[in-house]
């Protein structure tokens, strides 16, 4: 079982998701700290991410773009607020223009990631805070596109035999 809990608060526009990994906190940290690893999970299979800058320090920037099936690209960045390896990363997740400059008319949501060891496993807790419902809708639309269904299908194949596949709810 990977995702162990999801708490949603429609009034406060927050979502917290807990996941557990059968790996060390350092290994889970690498998923965020190694740009080549990050590229392999941030975007769905039809919209793979390419990380072009990765400065994981307070005030640093992570820049990426996602490429769609028709070669269409959407650019995004993280503005790092706080880092404490291998336990904590806080960033503001925003969209960017084609030249990589932050897009001012697109929403930013704050993401807080906490990684801790719990009984020989590693728990990762992701908390997202949206400035408004409209912002949340926009992030969802940008992040999912049509790639999601396909991603879920791939995941099901990977997790075959696991009763708690992401679609089983």
């Amino acid at each position, binding site marked *: 079982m990977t995702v162990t809990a999801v708490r949603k608060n429609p009034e406060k526009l927050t979502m917290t998701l807990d996941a557990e990994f059968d790996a060390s906190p350092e290994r889970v940290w690498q998923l965020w700290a190694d740009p080549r690893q990050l590229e392999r999970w941030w975007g769905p299979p039809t919209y793979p991410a390419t990380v072009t800058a990765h400065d994981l320090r307070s005030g640093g920037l992570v820049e990426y773009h996602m490429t769609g099936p028709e070669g269409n690209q959407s650019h995004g960045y993280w503005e790092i607020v706080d880092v404490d390896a291998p336990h904590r990363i806080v960033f503001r997740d925003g969209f960017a223009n084609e030249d990589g400059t932050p897009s001012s008319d697109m929403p930013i949501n704050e993401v807080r990631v906490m990684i801790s060891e719990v009984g020989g496993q590693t728990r990762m807790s992701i908390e997202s805070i949206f400035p408004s419902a409209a912002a949340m809708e926009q992030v969802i639309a940008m992040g999912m596109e049509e790639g999601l269904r396909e*991603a879920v299908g791939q*995941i099901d194949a990977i997790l075959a035999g696991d009763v708690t596949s992401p679609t089983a709810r």
Partner: protein
Amino acid sequence: MQIAPPDFDRMFGALADATRRDIVRRAIVGEEGVAELAEHYPMSFAAVQKHIAILERAGMVTKERIGRRKVVRANLERLRVARRLLDQYEELWRGRVARMTALVTDDTKEQNR
């Protein structure tokens, strides 16, 4: 790509108050009028009326005339929309976590080789 209609914010704003959430909860059953609803809360009739008006403007409830009474009913479709937005965001992160898991699992396989 879709951009949220501006009334999403109004909708969530309407739900940001505990009394209004409770009114919506009661309005799901949809049996009570404004006067009956007002009896549940330690505030004036006018104050409850105001809360209902905010919910009405956000499209979360409607007032329906049944005989001589005006019954407050929740707009279930609206409530589902609010819920769905968060559900979709959950799906996005579930997809990411599943890919993370696959990456971490890959190393275990390589170690065992």
